């Protein structure tokens, strides 16, 4: 298939890319931009490991055409760290065992970031509902709730940046 030129804004930086119109966003991120943080865990949008934000909405990049994201703002897990340091949620996932093998973690980072941006103080049920879009096979999710609670607390105290 003939390639076309598109402009993609990823993590705040605009990149010009020549890609096939049929190419999926996940493949463009991983192969053309070397942003391998977003993972492929399935091929049918069932696991959530490839979740990215498109204009602030979590989307599954494994079933999204890259060309359809032209003119939109894409945020991947690589764009979550703040001022070169771990964001509160990233630090908390490490401290509380929210990540074991880590393969699903980038997807969870995006999902949680979105959850906290629309609902800064979610209840446990709201957290569970939000996380149900992503699968994890290691943790049983429990330690993620602790991590999210800790991250919210850290955000409120403004202590995250200190680490």
């Amino acid at each position: 298939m003939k390639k076309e030129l598109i402009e993609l804004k990823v993590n705040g930086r605009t990149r010009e890319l020549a890609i096939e119109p049929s190419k999926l966003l996940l493949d463009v991120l991983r192969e053309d931009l070397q942003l391998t943080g977003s993972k492929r865990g399935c091929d049918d949008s069932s696991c959530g490991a490839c979740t990215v934000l498109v204009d602030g909405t979590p989307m599954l990049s494994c079933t999204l055409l890259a060309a359809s994201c032209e003119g939109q703002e894409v945020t991947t897990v690589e764009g979550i760290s703040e001022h070169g340091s771990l964001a509160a949620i990233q630090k908390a996932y490490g401290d509380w065992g929210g990540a074991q093998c880590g393969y699903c973690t980038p997807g969870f980072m995006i999902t949680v970031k979105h959850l906290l941006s629309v609902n800064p103080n979610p209840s446990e049920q709201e957290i569970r509902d939000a996380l149900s879009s992503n699968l994890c096979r290691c943790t049983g999710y429990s330690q993620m709730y602790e991590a999210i609670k800790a991250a919210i607390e850290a955000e409120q105290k403004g202590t995250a940046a200190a680490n």
Partner: protein
Amino acid sequence: MSDFSIIGKPIAMVDAAGKTTGAGKYTDDLSVPGMLVGKILHSPYPHARIKRIDTRRAKVLDGVVAVVAGADAPKTYGILPVGHDETALAVDKVRYVGDNVACVAAVDEPTAEKALELIDVDYEVLPAYFDPEESMRTETDLIHNGKPHNIEKDYHHVFGEPEKAFAEADYVAEGRFIANEVTHAAMEPHSTLASFELDSHTGNLGRLTVWSSTQVPYYLQHKLSLVLEMPMFQIRVIKPLVGGGFGGKSEVIPLEIIAAVAARAARAAVKITYTREEVFWAHRGRPRTIVDLKTGVKHDGRITAVKARVVQDGGAYCSYGVVTILYSGALLGALYDIPNIQYDGYRVLTNKPACGAMRGHGTVNVRFAFESQLDEISAKLGIDPAEMRRRNLLKPPCVTINGLRVQSYGLPECIEQVVGRSGWKQRKGKLGKGRGLGLGCSHYVSGAANSIIRSDMPHSTVNIKIDRDGGVVVYTGASEIGQGSDTMTAQIAAEVLGCSLSRVKVVAADTDLTPIDIGSYSSRVTFMAGNATLRAAEEVKKQIASAAARKMNCAVEDLVFRDDSVFQKSAGKNSRVTSIEASASGRVEGQILRGSLQQKRKEEGSKAWMSFEEAVVAAIDFHGALTGTGSYAPPPEARGGKHKGAGVGPSPAYSYSAQVAEVSVDEDTGEVIVHKVWASHDCGRALNPVAVEGQIIGSVWMGLGQALQEEMVWKDGMLMNPGLLEYRSPSAIESPEIEPIIVESIDPEGPFGAKECSEGSLAATIPAIANAIYDAVGIRLHEAPFTPERVLAALRAKKNAKPINMTEGIDPTAPTRFREHGGSLWFRGKGPERHPLDPARRDTIVEAGGDD
């Protein structure tokens, strides 16, 4: 040392940041210049002879660099020395739907996929076997030559006098339990990148480097050497981050060999990454297991004898099968005191993907049967289930009737903990209609005392290098797969050397750099690699201590290593305070002002403390170089009995678990909801409590999946649910609260007393839930998972009500489970047309091969 500075503290994994930022690299994230993409052609038939394979059309397609088939690497291999029955690509026969037939290496994925369609294969379809008991009866069209009745291996063990003991028993319970097939479903699909380099002297292909998602890099190196007929030293296996294994990456998976074979043919680097569907075909999960169990007891609840006949549906290749079937029998012992055991185990071949090792290898399904039956007996005898278990405890230290040495034994405390925390005594049987509590116990090995390839060599070796920079580099072959192996290694090294964790760098699982470690399986890493790290660190510490003692004019025994410094015990608390201050500044000084600082200290003469860096420099001055090596081999006393098959089951230490599950059952829908699980686990000593709790919760949670919803459903050898939506592991919504309770029995041989913590808990969850269902609604479920259909059927059977046929009008040849889930689509032309390669269409189509 009674108080620790790093051991026992909850700390973040050393590689956590790489995982939360996306910076960490897994195999599929890697690429090398000129790398090709490999795609595998899989068999559409469960059992067929390959009459002809023609790759010419595929080879000439533009963009295709190489096409390989069975003849390109016909050497057999298998993870067990007794089970070398696999080839990289099928040589004469395919044995399951998804078996590997050919591989294309091409410039990109679409080209490779197109080329697969151009490979012509003629098959002669053979009768296939999907049910183990049916498979065992056959005499013709065997799956493997030399395996009569398709029995991979059978074992018949008798310990004590079971028949006599059954005769003496006051009550004997008998029953059949079935646990259906489950798979690991690790989030990372398997991936391998293989690259040859040209040899400077011969000008031909030389060394091979393989990056792979594996739990066993050294076994992979060994099997690659077998199949490629290359010396092992020419092969380097590197394990990048691994996205979960659970046993699914604990042996050599076909793509790992195929990638290397393709790279050799293509003379270029080849990467193969499985699709999720291929991961399901690669499988190696927990086999469907049929357990016929008989337990004899006295009136007081003392077990007199246990007899188990176990049939495992092993799939098309041996894999770990011989070990699995042995574990199923051996781990009947070492949890309770059972004086007489009879075990008959059959590992049977069928035309489905091979089963292998999965978390709780071999013990899980039999434990489900045993703990359920024990609960049945308690109800019959009117003994509280917790009391029933207390009456059958081992009295360690002891050796069980089947030769397993038990030293530390935290089971009694585990039971007390969960009984206490769950309010068992006050609440059991009093939770109202449809709600109940159930108890289950389990145990697991802390590594196998005998390695797969039997030898007296160490199972783990660790090297430590400390240099002038004050950094501690630990070289270990142990494979981090998310369980925290690198963190555990760093913790132990730092604790022994009394330095901060930030000084320790772990270089792991690279066969060129790291000394051999047999891999991350059978929960062996903390115990074995941990002990090796401990020994290596102590060796280095000894060298530092002797130099430091000279400098300080004191005895070696008088030195304490702590907080990045070395000080004299006798100097007391004051020197400790000074040393802590020193460590804060010492790091900076060590980097920048090292020379002048050392000079200054030298001039000062002897003193009560030194910074870690000063001590290191002193040791290098004195010894020339600072390295240490430690290794671990299980002691002979822990290696088990002498009977045939005695090698599997023995371990230097066993972990223990007890769990109480609280469930409610909807009697109208059959749905089971687990509200909470209290899970106590005796891990010897919790080196990193947050990691231990994570492992306990993860195990319980995975057991919960197997108990309630996970099941591989087959039709004519075709997997009906090869996706993460259809194979339903629990999501956040379905996951209950799990309260992990750490019990520390301090094992005499474990590193700092530590034992296994990643697998043992899984086996207790399934019976705990089954027993809770009994407590809630009075039905005894004999087949896992406990789906609403099975629960409802049991509820109606209890009331003598007519079973509801939920599958009326649905394709009668489809598996029940599939029919229940609406598998009617294809019946009588109601649904979409079947794929041309679907074996169910085999009589309607003339030729398959898919050259459209």
